[in-house]
């Protein structure tokens, strides 16, 4: 923990709807991103992963809004910035990559224009310089013959190539934080691996923090240094990647890992789906939100929130069993 954190998120809360009727989709999320490190945010669809990412960028659309907490980027409180100050942060200090490269590029603008517009929004730069920089960036993300392709439109590019272009735009201003929201979900498996490797290499070279949002535990295992497990708007477990896979403490994390097929698994034992379904955030259960689905639920879990409990400096889980393990262990 020697390097200062690039991004500190504390008790972030984002809500859709009104004070009385609504859903708090991000509910007290706290984490820290360190330079040069990859933090994976995992969880099922609808658990608040993307809402967390969009909240960091302050891109939550109405009727959603951030109702509490703080987001500090290199010592600067982002939630207190004006909209125009925030525009200077987006794309410059934080670069974001989205899920679907097929719809993420403007079909009416060339590839070059879409990289140049990011550069020119943040740097005083002539068009010729911006063009040169865009060609360098495209070459860096693995687009061959970039000088010629800069004038091509998105429909000339495959999905994987479009994601490379979007990555080039996202890193164009050397951000200290890169947020990748399911960057490979829409791509073929062979392309997925290449894009992930590219992200990993770029992040390493730039020394940036990478927040990788995914539901794919295989991606987590190969990419992440630290893992945050999210369930129903809350972080239920935080651990370094080895600990998470070998010593998961939250029943939800355990259940999530049990859903993954390994190549050496005995196929006569079926995969274990998680019973029940994710809670309705418009009407969340009292107490631990995983309690209705939890195989080891206790009475107290149904009445009291379970905060994150410290297991070691690198490991926390929001489960009462952490206390019991401690007493018996």
């Amino acid at each position: 923990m020697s390097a200062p954190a690039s991004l500190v998120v504390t008790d972030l809360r984002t809500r859709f709807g009104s004070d009385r009727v609504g859903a708090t989709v991000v509910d007290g999320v706290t984490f820290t991103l360190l330079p040069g490190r990859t933090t994976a945010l995992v969880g099922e669809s609808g658990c608040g992963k993307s809402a967390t990412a969009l909240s960091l960028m302050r891109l939550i659309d109405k009727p959603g809004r951030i109702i509490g907490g703080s987001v500090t980027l290199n010592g600067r409180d982002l939630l207190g910035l004006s909209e125009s100050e925030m525009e200077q942060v987006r794309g410059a200090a934080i670069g974001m990559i989205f899920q679907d490269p097929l719809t993420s590029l403007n079909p009416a603008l060339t590839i070059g224009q879409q990289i140049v517009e990011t550069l020119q929004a943040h740097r005083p730069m002539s068009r010729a310089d911006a063009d040169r920089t865009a060609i360098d960036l495209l070459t860096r993300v693995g687009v061959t013959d970039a000088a010629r392709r800069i004038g091509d439109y998105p429909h000339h590019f495959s999905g994987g190539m479009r994601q490379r272009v979007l990555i080039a735009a996202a890193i164009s201003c050397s951000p200290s934080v890169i947020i990748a929201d399911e960057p490979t979900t829409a791509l073929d498996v062979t392309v997925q691996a290449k894009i992930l490797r590219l992200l990993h290499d770029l992040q390493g070279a730039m020394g940036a923090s990478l927040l990788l949002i995914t539901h794919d535990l295989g991606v987590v295992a190969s990419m992440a240094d630290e893992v945050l497990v999210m369930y129903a708007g809350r972080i239920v477990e935080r651990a370094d990647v080895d600990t998470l896979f070998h010593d998961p403490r939250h029943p939800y994390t355990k259940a999530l890992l049990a859903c993954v097929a390994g190549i050496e698994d005995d196929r006569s034992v079926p995969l274990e789906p998680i019973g029940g379904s994710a809670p309705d955030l418009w009407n969340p259960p009292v107490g631990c939100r995983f309690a209705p689905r939890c195989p080891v639920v206790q009475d107290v879990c149904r009445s009291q929130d379970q905060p994150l409990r410290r297991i070691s400096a690198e490991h926390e889980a929001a489960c009462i069993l952490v206390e019991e393990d401690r007493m018996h262990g």
Partner: protein
Amino acid sequence: MGAFLARRLAGVIPVIFGVSIVIFMLIQLAPGDAATVLLGPQASEAAKIELRHTLGLDQPLVSQYVVWLARTLSGNFGTSIATQLPVATLVVPRFLNTLILTFGSLVLAVAIGYAIGLFAGLRSHSLFDRLSMSLALLAGSAPPFWLGLILVLLFAIQLRWLPVSGMQDMAGNGGWLDVLHHLVLPSVTTALGPAAIMARIVRSSVIEALGRSHVRVARAKGLSRATLIRRHVILNALPPIVTITGLQLGYLLGGALLTEVVFAWPGLGALLYDSITARDLPVIQATTLLIALAFVLANIAVDLINAALDPRLREA
């Protein structure tokens, strides 16, 4: 782009050919007989036969069409039956007058429709949006001839701000200012309907474009709101807007008929109305052909603009 234009223009020829057949046939299908209309019910059968022979109406349909087409292609639209003047000298100045009215209406419709649609779309479900869309519905459903009469009653007869009808003052020395003064009421009358339609289309395409994924990506790039709206919202919202504008232009060119009649604007619509009443076949044919041609050309213009906006169309 050149190849695209050539291809589109080549596509016009069969369309115009088809239109000419339809126009020719429609007039044949219409009940009544030009000779009877021209000579009156008391005319002798011999006189009618002679007139039909002079006009070529006793020839087989196909040869009538070929003669008409050959003549029309060589620029000769024939002679008006009612006025005995060459059709071209009747139609061309009327067409220019209609162009003036069309231009005035289009400028108004675009200015009002685009501005309201854009603001309503960018702030959808706001008070302005709901108010302006209700007004658009009202304006769009008001029949132009009724609207024209109401406007005349209010601004020309009660307030006496604007002239009742015509294109120029009888006593005045003309000039473009006088024309402009006369242009206000008829162009407002014809513009309101198209403006309402454009406002609704602009609003819905802006809303649609705002919701696209690449707009969120552009916001994540930190673009200013103005750049975002110009490059990522409006640019992508334009194709349906251009299309509806082209259709409305076609409608204005040919369909301002009732407005022209109400305001005694000496345009193509008023001429068509008169020539239909008089069963003046050569004039009806020339007028409808001209309107159809204008409509087709407006649509080509739309295709060209859309191809310039969307690279995928250019290559298709």
